[in-house]
């Protein structure tokens, strides 16, 4: 604190401003990459969404026509409407990973012989690739030889073609997605539980708190940071759900399991796509939706910082 004041007067500009420059120097590489790979592409996407371009020829400026087309797709209950609706279903149902992860974490937070093995088994789905998860569930749902229908037949139900029925397909994929996501939330809560203050629990006990009241009033408040991260990760995960859809259904049957991220890929980059401008317009919409959440997260983080 005092070194700067005591420094002799004839010093170079760099030395005099070292304290102020150093943070920027350290930030520079990060900022540079963030600019090149995130900020600038955001503006480029917006710019591209005003053009019609097949990725090869000359781009033609069309103003807001791409957005107008999206609006008509919305009115007609077409692909864009379905994608947005599915995105909403994903957002809501994907959050189930948080309570599920919490309860598994509470269940595993004990010291019995071999608990490490059980923990790793529960964490296992998060370690394996999403592609594998997708394939496993595709076979599980298979209408002719899948385990699910064998199981349903045991109770005299089914057969059910989960991935071939436009009513069930999105839910089927979300269940597949919840498997690894729950494991992730579980790990977040397990680390959080390590930091729970035993004295507070002791104090709670003395005051007669047990079971649900103990969890709700004493444990959960202390798990707030873990809940926050789990929330952020799950929301973002739901919005960018892509790999499972690509592997399990390719957006089908007849486009009923699309979400915005997949629709964007389909329109702009898939075999029959290459409407770059239209894809960019979808990307912009997706970005605006994400921005709402990101703004909320940043705001609550800022509030947290000021509170301390």
């Amino acid at each position, binding site marked *: 604190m005092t070194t700067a004041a005591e420094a002799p007067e004839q010093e170079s500009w760099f030395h005099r401003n070292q304290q102020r420059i150093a943070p920027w120097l350290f930030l520079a590489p990060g900022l540079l990459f963030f600019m090149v790979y995130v900020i600038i592409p955001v503006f480029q996407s917006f710019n591209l969404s005003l053009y*019609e371009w*097949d*990725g*090869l*020829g000359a781009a033609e400026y069309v103003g807001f026509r791409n957005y107008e*087309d999206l609006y008509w797709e919305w009115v*007609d209950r*077409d692909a864009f409407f379905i994608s947005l609706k599915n995105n909403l279903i994903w957002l809501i149902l994907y959050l189930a990973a948080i309570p599920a992860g919490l309860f598994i974490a509470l269940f595993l937070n004990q010291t019995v012989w071999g608990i490490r093995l059980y923990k790793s088994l529960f964490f296992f789905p998060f370690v394996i690739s999403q592609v594998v998860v997708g394939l496993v569930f595709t076979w599980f749902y*298979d*209408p*002719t030889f899948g385990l699910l229908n064998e199981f349903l037949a045991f109770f005299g139900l089914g057969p059910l*073609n989960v*991935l*071939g029925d436009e009513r069930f397909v999105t839910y089927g994929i979300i269940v597949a997605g919840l498997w690894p996501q729950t494991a992730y939330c579980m790990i977040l809560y397990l680390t959080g539980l390590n930091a729970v203050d035993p004295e507070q629990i002791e104090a709670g006990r003395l005051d007669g708190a047990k079971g649900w009241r103990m969890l709700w009033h004493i444990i959960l408040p202390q798990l707030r940071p873990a809940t926050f991260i789990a929330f952020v990760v799950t929301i973002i995960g739901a919005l960018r759900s892509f790999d499972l859809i690509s592997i399990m*259904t*390719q957006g*089908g*049957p*007849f*486009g009923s399991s699309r979400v915005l991220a997949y629709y964007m890929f*389909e329109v702009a*980059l*898939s*075999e*029959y*796509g*290459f*409407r770059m401008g239209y894809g960019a317009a979808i990307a912009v919409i997706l970005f605006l939706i994400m921005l709402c959440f990101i703004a909320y997260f940043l705001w609550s983080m800022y509030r947290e910082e000021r509170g301390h």
Partner: protein
Amino acid sequence: MNSIFKRTAAALAASVALAAPVAAELTGELRIFLDTSNPAPRATMEAMIDRFAAQHPGLEIETTVIDREAYKTQIRNFLTADTPDVATWYAANRMKPYVEAGLFEDVSDLWAEAEIGDNLASTKGAMTIDGKQWGVPYTYYQWGVYYRKDIFDELGLTEPTTWEEELANCQKIVDSGRACYTIGTKFLWTAGGWFDYLNMRTNGFDFHQQLANGEVSWEDGRVKQTFANWKQLIDMGAFIDNHQTYSWQEALPFMVNGEAAAYLMGNFAVAPLREAGLSDDQLDFYQFVSINPDVELAEDAPTDTFHIPSNASNKEAAREFLRFVVSPDEQTEINNGKNLGQLPVNAKSAVDDDKFLNQGFEMLSSNSPGGVAQFWDRDAPAEMAKVSMEGFQEFMVKPDNADRILAKLERARQRIYDN
């Protein structure tokens, strides 16, 4: 040391193989990009390139094989940057975006040579855009109905030729507890094959091409008739259940296990069916039945092609390679049953002595007076192909939605062909 030895050995081998005289010595580097990533076609192509290399020892050939699906998107990148000298692709509308963007070399000069122009006349139309040719074909194959002869015999059925016979046959197959046709529409294009045939048989080749070019409304009465015919089959349970969940390969076991009697497919389905244990006594082929007696029969016969990118650096060698690929002997060799198992494009080549290739060749050369289509997703622009095939899939699951689906396709047509 080892590599020097190898090179010497290769040079020796090449000079021994150099029996035929070569006009001009080709030098430099020739880079070839292939999408033939399946094991059998890959080996065929590599062997063919080795034979070409043996004729041109001065040429350094570098071959890159890219996964067939990935190739479809990568081609856009490598045509503009780091461009090869020769690349595979597909005929007709599928090459149009690259032709229009000036990324494919005009090779009309090759087609002006009698050796190519005369012998490849049958595929010239598919390679022509704006009166010029943009590449050469190297193989094509027929589509048609592959069926289980033993099941037909068991039920006392014969190969149908008319729509009435077709429906009667199918009814008997359904009554025996089987599906008439297996199909897997997860990746959509298989439904495009059914639409091709039903529409070409109901309304003819020319109408079909007009529809692909966006000149006719999807809500036209003639299109509705095609869908009405299709619905007859769907309503009687002709297709396997849950086809929207399967790829075309995953639909094969239904036919192998005898749960379905037939498959409308390209000739490439024969190899996996044989591998799965069906003998040639159990497996047979017939041409898709005629529906409207007033229209001439027309067939699907997709053509795979070689092109020279405009940015290629060794175009002279590339042209020589294209000449080599379409030469009668090479065509006979690479399309025989041990290799691609498809039809040669050169009229002077021999068709391999294979039951299905002979029937297909016969059908295409003498019983397809209406014309030869490439396939729905190659004849229609990519965007329209995508939307419409999704509509076909939905129709096959929910035939009662026909009017709503056609209205949606009509809206898409007005948007897509508008610009």
